[in-house]
């Protein structure tokens, strides 16, 4: 039996990687992927707690997160496509039309 803390540490590492790449990367797709990575880190934590405490609610939450993430991916990729079509770039620093 793998102890709970290992899962949590793995989740934390994954989450930290996600945050770091979100902050560092300039490519929108990569940023999008890092968001997915953070979500899945949280999912992993949920699952770990659910199996540790023998409770279903954590797993239910994960389903919710997955559904929302799927919807988000659909919308987000559509936005990215639209941005790319109009600006011909995926660099977020160049998508600053609304900046003051």
């Amino acid at each position, binding site marked *: 039996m793998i102890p709970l803390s290992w899962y949590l540490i793995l989740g934390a590492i994954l989450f930290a990687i996600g*945050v770091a790449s979100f*902050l560092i990367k300039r490519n929108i797709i990569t*940023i999008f992927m890092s968001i997915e990575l953070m979500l899945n880190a949280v999912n992993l934590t949920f699952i770990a707690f659910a199996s540790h405490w023998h409770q279903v609610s954590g797993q239910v939450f994960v389903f919710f997160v997955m559904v929302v993430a799927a919807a988000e991916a659909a919308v987000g990729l559509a936005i990215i496509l639209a941005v790319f079509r109009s600006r011909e770039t995926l660099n*977020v620093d160049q998508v*600053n039309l*609304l*900046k*003051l």
Partner: protein
Amino acid sequence: MTSTPNFYLWLIPILPLIGSAINGIFGKRFPRTLVASIALLFPGAALLQAFWVAAQFAHLEQTQIPHIERLFAWIEAGQAFHVEYGFYLDQLSLTMLLIVTGIGFLIHIYSVGYMAEEGGYYRFFSYLNLFMFFMLTLVLAHNYLLMFVGWEGVGLASYLLIGFFFLKDSAAQAGKKAFITNRVGDFAFLLGMFQIIQHFGTLDYDKVFKGISSLPVEAGVGFLTATALLMMVGATGKSAQIPLYVWLPDAMEGPTPVSALIHAATMVTAGIYMIARSNVLFLHAPMALRVVAIIGALTAIFAASIGLVQTDIKRVLAYSTVSQLGYMFMACGVAAFSAGIFHLMTHAFFKALLFLAAGSVIHSLGGEQDMRHMGGLRKLIPWTFWTMTIATFAIAGFPPLSGFFSKDEILWKAFSDQTHGSWVFWLIGWITAGMTSFYMFRLWFLTFFGERRQPVHNEHEEPTGAVHAPNAARADVGHQSGLKSSDAGSHGHGDHGHGGHVHESPWVMLGPLVVLALGSIVMGWVGIPEALGGHNKFDQFLTPVFHTSSEPARSAENFSTEPQRSQNPASEKALELELATASVGVAVLGFLLAWLLYHRRTELPDRIAASMRAAYGALLNKYWVDEAYYATLINPIVNGSRAVLWRGIDVGIIDALVNGAGTASKGISGVTRRMQSGSIRSYAGWVALGAACVVAFMIWMGLHA
């Protein structure tokens, strides 16, 4: 009350309001004939209804007078105070109703001709109808508050019409002057109403008068005197008495029909009406009554003396109006209210006629108002001449014209009333009568007799558009000379209007003159005193208004004039005849003097003016009253407002606060806006940092738990 017929009194004021609204809203797109028809139709309907009401009124029982029609509750403030929207008809308001609708309608007809070539035709008639609405509300109201609505409303209409030629600076200024001067009086009127509310809890005439009747006559100065004095100040504003008369001469900037209707015949009599209406109050405050008489007498002689030397034909008439209003005030002050209303009525006819005839003269001369440039017009404009002659003789007090009877009634009452009258009032009135006669005949001789004294510029008689060549007589150039320079849009034609030949005015203007002339002759006959073989029907007609309510007070004070008169009727009548002869004599004297100075030996006036330089200067400059007001009141207020209120408080505090708030938020936002860089990664960094802080805090809490 159930058997009382319904007169639909509310319709009378509403009709002109409808006319005003139609013309005011849609009139701009209407052709002139349609505007004129609407403007005449509604006041005409009101006039017809007034006649119908008068006919019905004759059938009322004495107990049914005053006839009150309550429409709906207007203001309800708990149990303590409520005001109804309702109308009140008794002999006094019926008289006023007929004067206002009758003369008002005639002047509307006249205006159709007079204003025919002016710009803003629809606007003029809309205002004129609006004035009728407010004036009728004023005279028909059944409580002081509704009267005040009319009172303010006629002030508004007066302001709008004085400033009708608003592009001319002096007209705009005169409008403001009238409005602000009246505001001083209105404020006092308001305070008087507050006093009444405080003591009687109501503003309905019948209840207030009943309340006052039950009180004893005030010997000293108490709240009744204070209230009466406050009301009187209100009346001095509207009726142009000392010290608030200054606006009326300037009000002559308005079109002449307006001067006739508002500033001679109707609105300025509102103060007299108010005092007569409040006769119970004034009879219970003899001190206030005395003040009214003094102010009236002083105004009469003061204004008449200024009128002696004015050269603008309308200004002479304006000062004459102030002076005649002083007579009416004096009549009210000696408790001869019916004499005051009688003079109000006859004056409404002959002064409206004088103004309209003067307007006709001005019209025929293409805007010339200076009498020094007139003369010899008798043959050229005969209808105007003859009607004006009747009015001049009427105002000068020649029997059997109307002015003689009403003026004589006032003088007689001023002399004979034991409690309120005094020979001093009579003497002042008598001298004023002489002056009135003099300045009116001066105007008459200067305008109609002698040779035409042309102003310097004439020649080129270019046809100014054939449209109004025959009868409109240069009206296109604007009677008010200022307009033609400033309002070129509405007057396409140039400046070439003066001089040239003089035309009689069109019939639409002469018709009202003739009707008013007939009125000026016959209106006095309703009040022929008994000393001259009449019955003074007018006095008897109004008696219920002025005596019933004050009867207990009279007997209590024992100052009845009737018993005194009946004690020795023969000698009383002889005295009255002597006084009447004296006033006719002084009128003839004024006529002869005017004839001598302005017809026979026309070089004399200049010599007299030169020899009495100081007095002449004082009169010509109207005793420097305007200047004194400027020095003592207006300039300090204006300068104080500029220095303290404007530069100090408005700019220094209020603007500084507002601008400071703006500058401060701009500065703060300049700093804070940097937080919103628009870069997603910086936001994410902030979020991550915040999350890290939260996590750190929780760990720290966990460690210390």
